């Protein structure tokens, strides 16, 4: 231990130095607005116990990583979120990405698909294929996955309200490929609670939505054992403006809600918990993000062990996907985004992510072009192959600052988790608008800081250049609406209408029971019932959720 304590040093030496050359007029704080001290040293880790806090990779509490070998065994999965237009166009983009060295698929669906409208529905007008691919029926799913061996490539699907239906479609397509369902790997986001909080693609009220989610848990346990049934996501809450600690806390509060629902439905924690996955954002505050990832693993291990009495290490280890911060990208001087994304990607890797999506620099302007997507992928490859950071597991462990920050984020997160418990859990919080309000407060604060230039955003409120950026942008084929409508019309004529009707009636009947709906959904999509038709039936039975005003 040093003879001079940090405290003494601050009071004597540091203060003197600051009198001579004052600190920059800058914010020395974390995303939660907590002060960052000038220096971290051994005294910050005074009561700190290595084994309690860190341990070894692959061992409780998994702070240092979930696999014993981490990236020395295999690099993270480079998984670029993509999808636009119709199934055929998106299939072409996937083939391109796989050729470029991407190692997993990540499907973006368009808003009508996410909200349960077929492409020819009135509400879908203008939105078909815009933010993702339009999928209404098994026919589309077959086209989407054509030429992609589903037994070997894992697929992540960003889909929530309609997740069970899209999963049913994926399974049906895999069966048609002749794949062994026991080998099918991938993830459905399937996280409805954060939709109510931040992302907005909900359909039904919370209770029936939770039932669908636990149906997926239970069904996959037996039928699709390699599938990650849910990706409990902090990403969108972070994008909506919350802090790093809130991102963890709100996500874990949601996780607790799902787990409780599943246990309430008769499942055993250790039976389904190994298939729970998480999804974090990675924003710009470099070391805070690393600390966040590390803290997240420790918190989940504790929740699993202490709250749910888990016996299995596989249930205690938090596996997560990361996406760099979309909200940090700027439309001004868009190439600066390459720099931001590279730094964020490095954070995620130092934090031990299992898979990673790097944003393209042009995404603040439009859908990413192919060359921008390629550059985003190269970012990961450079980190993976050229920087050597994957050669050592958890290389920042022991850093006074990083460990202190990891502890602090954990502490802040627990405080929020407890506050939500006091309210009555995540769902009650959502209904009261608690999480929404907290997020908006943080978002507003960030906006104010930027406007007062206390927070510099390069190229936006400082180092501004007047030149107009007009890069080549990606446009979805405007004919896609018409093409889709024709496809659906033809499909509806071709398929066995009675079989569709029968399968929909079964779904309607099961809506008010607690029967597992998954087999019925698989049956319906195999009869070529569409996403919109199935959701239409459920809308009639369950009604629709309406947002809570929280501003």
């Amino acid at each position, binding site marked *: 231990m040093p003879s001079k304590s940090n405290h003494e040093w601050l009071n004597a030496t540091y203060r003197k130095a600051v009198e001579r050359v004052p600190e920059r007029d800058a914010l020395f704080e974390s995303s939660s607005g907590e002060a960052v001290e000038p220096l971290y040293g051994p005294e910050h880790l005074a009561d700190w116990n290595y084994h309690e806090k860190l341990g070894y990779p692959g061992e409780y509490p998994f702070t240092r990583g979930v696999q014993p070998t981490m990236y020395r065994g295999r690099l993270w999965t480079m998984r670029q979120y993509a999808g636009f237009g119709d199934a055929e166009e998106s299939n072409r983009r996937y083939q391109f990405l796989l050729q470029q060295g991407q190692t997993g698929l990540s499907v973006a669906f368009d808003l009508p698909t996410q909200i349960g409208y077929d492409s020819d529905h009135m509400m879908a007008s203008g939105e078909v294929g815009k933010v993702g691919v339009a999928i209404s029926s098994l026919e589309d799913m077959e086209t989407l996955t054509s030429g992609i061996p589903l037994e070997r490539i894992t697929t992540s699907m960003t889909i929530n309200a309609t997740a069970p239906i899209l999963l049913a479609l994926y399974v049906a397509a895999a069966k048609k490929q002749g794949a062994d369902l026991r080998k099918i790997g991938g993830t459905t986001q399937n996280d409805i609670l954060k939709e109510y909080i931040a992302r907005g693609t909900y359909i039904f009220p919370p209770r029936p939505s939770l039932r669908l989610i636990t149906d997926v848990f239970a069904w996959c346990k037996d039928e699709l054992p390699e599938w990650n049934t849910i990706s409990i996501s902090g990403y969108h809450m972070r994008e909506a403006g919350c802090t790093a600690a809130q991102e963890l806390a709100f996500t874990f509060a949601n996780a607790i809600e799902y787990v409780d629902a599943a246990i309430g439905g008769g499942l055993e924690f250790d039976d389904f918990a190994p298939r729970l996955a998480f999804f974090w954002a990675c924003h710009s505050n470099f070391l805070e993000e690393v600390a966040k990832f590390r803290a997240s693993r420790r918190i989940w291990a504790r929740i699993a062990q202490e709250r749910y009495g888990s016996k299995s290490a596989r249930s205690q280890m938090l596996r997560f996907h990361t996406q760099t911060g979309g909200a940090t990208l700027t439309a001004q001087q868009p190439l600066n985004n390459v720099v931001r994304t590279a730094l964020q990607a490095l954070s995620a890797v130092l934090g031990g992510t299992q898979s990673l999506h790097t944003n393209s620099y042009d995404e603040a302007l439009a859908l990413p072009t192919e060359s921008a997507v390629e550059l985003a992928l190269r970012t990961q490859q450079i980190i993976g192959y050229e920087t050597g950071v994957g050669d050592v597991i958890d290389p920042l462990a022991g850093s006074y600052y990083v460990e202190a920050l990891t502890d602090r984020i954990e502490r802040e997160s627990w405080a929020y988790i407890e506050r939500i418990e006091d309210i009555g859990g995540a769902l009650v919080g959502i209904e*009261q608008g608690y999480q929404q309000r907290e997020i908006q407060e943080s978002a507003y604060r960030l906006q104010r800081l930027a406007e007062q230039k206390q927070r510099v955003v390069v190229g936006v409120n400082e180092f501004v250049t007047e030149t107009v950026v007009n890069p080549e942008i990606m446009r979805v084929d405007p004919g896609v609406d018409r093409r889709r409508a024709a496809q659906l019309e033809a499909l509806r004529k071709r398929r066995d209408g009675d079989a569709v009707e029968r399968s929909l009636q079964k779904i309607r009947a099961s809506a008010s029971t607690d029967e597992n709906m998954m087999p019925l959904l698989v049956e319906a999509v195999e009869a070529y019932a569409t996403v919109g038709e199935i959701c239409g039936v459920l809308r009639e039975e369950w009604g629709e959720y*309406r*947002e*809570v*005003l929280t*501003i």
Partner: protein
Amino acid sequence: MQAAELVEGVLAGNRRALARAISHVEADSPTGRELQRALYPRTGRAQTIGITGSAGAGKSTLVGAVTRDERRRGRTVGIVAVDPSSPFSHGAILGDRIRMQDLTSDPGVFLRSMASRGNLGGLSETATGVVDVMDAAGYDVVIIETVGAGQDEVEVATAAQTTVLVTNPGAGDEIQSMKAGLMEVAQVMVVNKADLAGADTAVTQLRALLAIADLRAWRPPILKAVAKTGEGVPELVDAIDEHHAYLRSHEHGDRERRELARKQIVALARAALHRQALETAEHSGALAALVDEVAGRRRDPRSAAEILLGAVKREWGEAALAEPTPENAAR
């Protein structure tokens, strides 16, 4: 659009004219006054309902549910939803349309959001006028929903014929501490979110309070409802209808309608007096001088207030002599 054109439009049920007319009334502009004068004789047809209660009681959801029920009964509905203005910026966020999304594309419904605009009573001074314009535009039912805090709950009673007080299960403490006045202005009471535990307790507590209140012929019914699912809402609308019928037919009805008119006049006059008195005081310069004296501890605030009032009275005395019309007093 000029006043005459607006009057014609409102009476013909033109929505755009109605919206613009409301803006004038809300702004208390000369056109607004003209409109109120022209339209008032054409009002009185609508059933007007005030919905009040504390924040989070579920008033907006209940308004939606009541509206849906009224629509099922074939009545058209105008809604005035009042939310608070920020005391600092005077701005407001008005979000009631969110909870009534399905109603906003129904041609039989007209929803207007209003900010309280920092009036002393909380409820916009002009809300009564807005209700009247909707009445004149031919809506069968006009519902006014208010911000749920403070004195405005009392004031809502002046804007509508039937006032519905909304509470929740578990609001025991709140019910206990309710001002007697509030109890007395409500003609219907409803325990919303009655699917939660404690609904019956709340009903019992309300009943106990009513027992000691100073009531006249009408005894407010106490109902239970779940606005979110619509449970109990038809019964609530029935109760409102009953009160409406009571006002029309019962011997006390006429007295109560006169009472309402009196309250409306007094409330408006009080607000106007208050505002004008302060304006006059500031204008005369008397206030600024008194502030100096009180701040300097040379005079006590109470005497200062009396002096101020004297100054106002003197100014008004002269003005009243010069132009003794009723309109002057109301300006």
